[in-house]
């Protein structure tokens, strides 16, 4: 086992990985950018090194700095977390070349899975159903005509190297196709250095269900059940749950076998996730992509299986074999994750920054918070807007929803606008509570993103604000007269407040 590991990330995932490493008795090294100097992951680690910079490019994405610091600190391995360099094959290869263990799959596997066409071919070879797609598009060529006549519109234009919605276009009509292909290709070329694009069948009412996989270097590969991830905004997940309300036993078995077959066919080692689209009308599922990293939403799997996935990542990377077989994997109860984003759901999920005047997470049985921030900390615009993940566990789905509901209601966050009110509405929405929802959920129900009528709570807030203001502002100011020709409120003289 390693004696020292560097965590090349920030925020909640850095904290999460550091905690597991420390519980395993491994010495820990954190890295930080200038704005993160006092962040929780820095204080938690045994050692912390400055990356001397502000932007992601000059800090958490600077592979040379990270590798040099790992060597300097005496770390034997690097845990990349998710995002940043976690799925960068060159970083992985550079670590290996520098004599460091990259905690994840090898660089060839990362390259293979990062290419949508090659990963699809791998899935087909493994007998896994894939979303129908056209050959690569080339200007002036007509070899996508077969795809068009079979599937027609609407369809998706996708970039081979795309991700996070970049290089992707929904095309409704033939006339929009060529411009969409050209612009997606341009966007992907500038964002990923690879402008190859293709057409893919579009499922308007699909569900997004993924399977967690664990594989060791000896070829033992198992799956750890599914996660339902259909509540999304801007192609990013917001709420995840397991088990998925969309799967029955037979479908779960079949998808799980497909996930394992794909991981084996790709030569996968370590923890990974196989993403599928499920068409709820037919029960048919299609391979979408495989993520070669620990996922944001891994805690719900940990809660229902009572397993530490990060510990398995470290053990596998250190050369240990799995001590579990597929039959040992038994899920218990239901877990729900809500991602707490610093964003305004009433303003098209616009990011919000500021200082956390209040950050007081709820505690109790069946609750877990993976957080990368603390009270008093500044939330800056430089990195991702996810502050934390709140996870609830219950004996059944209703129990975990109820527990989540009370937890969200009792989580004071002040100073930065968060999506907590949106999350409260979402988990109580009939479409969510019924379990019968798909990826259109957020867009379909405008009441989730419109300021609601909270009746007496709105009135209570107003009353509290008035009482508090009167008590908070020194009384003498209230007696000042302004000499204006009309009666004036005493506080108007204080000027206009500017609000985020």
């Amino acid at each position, binding site marked *: 086992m390693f004696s020292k590991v560097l965590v090349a990330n920030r925020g909640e995932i850095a904290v999460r990985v550091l905690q597991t490493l420390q519980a395993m008795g491994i010495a820990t090294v954190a890295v930080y950018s200038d704005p993160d100097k006092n962040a929780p992951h820095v204080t938690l680690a045994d050692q912390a090194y400055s990356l001397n910079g502000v932007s992601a490019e000059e800090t958490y994405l600077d592979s040379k700095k990270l590798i040099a610091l790992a060597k300097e600190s005496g770390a034997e391995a690097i845990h990349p977390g998710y995002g940043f360099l976690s799925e960068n094959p060159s970083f992985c290869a550079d670590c290996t070349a520098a004599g460091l263990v990259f905690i994840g799959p090898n660089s060839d596997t990362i390259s293979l899975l990062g290419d949508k066409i090659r990963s699809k071919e791998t899935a087909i070879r493994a007998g896994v159903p894939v979303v129908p797609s056209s050959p690569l598009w080339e200007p002036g060529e007509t070899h996508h005509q077969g795809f068009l006549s079979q599937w027609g519109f609407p369809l998706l234009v996708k970039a081979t190297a795309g991700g996070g919605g970049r290089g992707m276009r929904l095309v409704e009509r033939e006339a929009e196709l060529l411009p969409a292909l050209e612009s997606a290709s341009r966007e992907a070329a500038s964002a990923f250095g690879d402008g190859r694009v293709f057409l893919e069948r579009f499922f308007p009412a699909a569900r997004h269900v993924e399977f967690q996989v664990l594989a060791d270097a000896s070829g033992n590969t198992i799956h750890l059940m599914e996660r339902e991830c259909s509540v999304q905004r801007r192609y990013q997940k917001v709420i995840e749950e397991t088990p998925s309300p969309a799967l029955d036993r037979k479908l779960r078995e079949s998808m799980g076998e497909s996930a394992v077959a794909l991981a084996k066919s790709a030569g996968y080692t370590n923890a990974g996730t196989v993403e599928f689209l499920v068409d709820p009308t037919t029960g048919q599922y299609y391979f979408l992509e495989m993520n070669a990293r620990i996922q944001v939403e891994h805690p719900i799997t940990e809660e229902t299986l009572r397993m530490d996935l990060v510990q398995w990542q470290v053990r596998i990377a250190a050369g240990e074999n799995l001590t579990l077989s597929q039959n040992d994997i038994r899920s218990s109860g239901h877990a729900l994750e809500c991602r707490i984003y610093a964003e305004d759901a009433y303003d098209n999920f616009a990011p919000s920054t500021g200082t956390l*005047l*209040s950050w007081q997470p709820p505690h109790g049985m069946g609750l877990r918070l993976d957080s990368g921030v603390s009270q008093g900390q500044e939330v800056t615009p*430089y990195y991702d807007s996810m502050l934390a993940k709140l996870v609830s566990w219950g004996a059944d789905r209703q129990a975990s929803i109820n527990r989540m509901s009370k937890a969200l209601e009792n989580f004071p966050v*002040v100073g930065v606008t*968060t999506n907590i*009110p949106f999350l409260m509405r979402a988990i109580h929405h009939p479409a969510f509570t019924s379990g019968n929802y798909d990826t259109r959920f957020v867009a379909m129900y405008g009441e989730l993103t419109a300021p609601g009528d909270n*009746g007496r709570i709105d009135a*209570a*807030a107003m009353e509290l*604000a008035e009482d508090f203001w009167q008590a908070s502002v020194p009384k003498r100011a209230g007696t000042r007269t302004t000499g204006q020709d009309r009666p004036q409120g005493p506080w108007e003289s204080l000027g206009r407040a500017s609000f985020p």
Partner: protein
Amino acid sequence: MSQQLDNSQAQDNPPTKNERLLKQVYPPTRSVDDLASSQDTDPANPPAAEHPIQLLKQEQDYWEGLYRLAQGKTLRFQAHRVGQQVHIWIGGELYHFALPVSSSRGRTTQRISTDEILCSVPGVVLTVDVADGDSVVEGQTLLVIESMKTEQVVKSPRDGTVQRVAVQPGDRVDRGMRLVALAPLEKT
């Protein structure tokens, strides 16, 4: 520990529309005045307890406590004052209140102007696509701001000429900051 808030005039006689000092600025919502009046006469939702506010912590700029609604339901709340802003957190919802904008003493209320393009989101300027003196058309991209990994495209609100670009790539910008000034439209 806890103390009952008493002798507050506002308690016994909730402020009416004309007496209120603060204005709700977030969430953007229909008027709380309409809301309060409609709720007070709602027979299915009787008024809250006579002294609904129980303070557990009371500092100059911070209150924490419980708010009793009707039918025994109690919500936790926090009140924070930052300068002239009041943040109220209650039962998972967040509110901002501020003083109403004064229209007296020469301070004009916010003029709707298309001459100045202000920043609507905190972030870092990624690209600047125009320069001083450029002609632009409505909807043309002026610059792109990156905020928390999301790109926000700032477009021109009208046809015109760029008088001054106030930022350059790499600048950190905040809400309300001036990004670009367009030459004022000539009055004809």
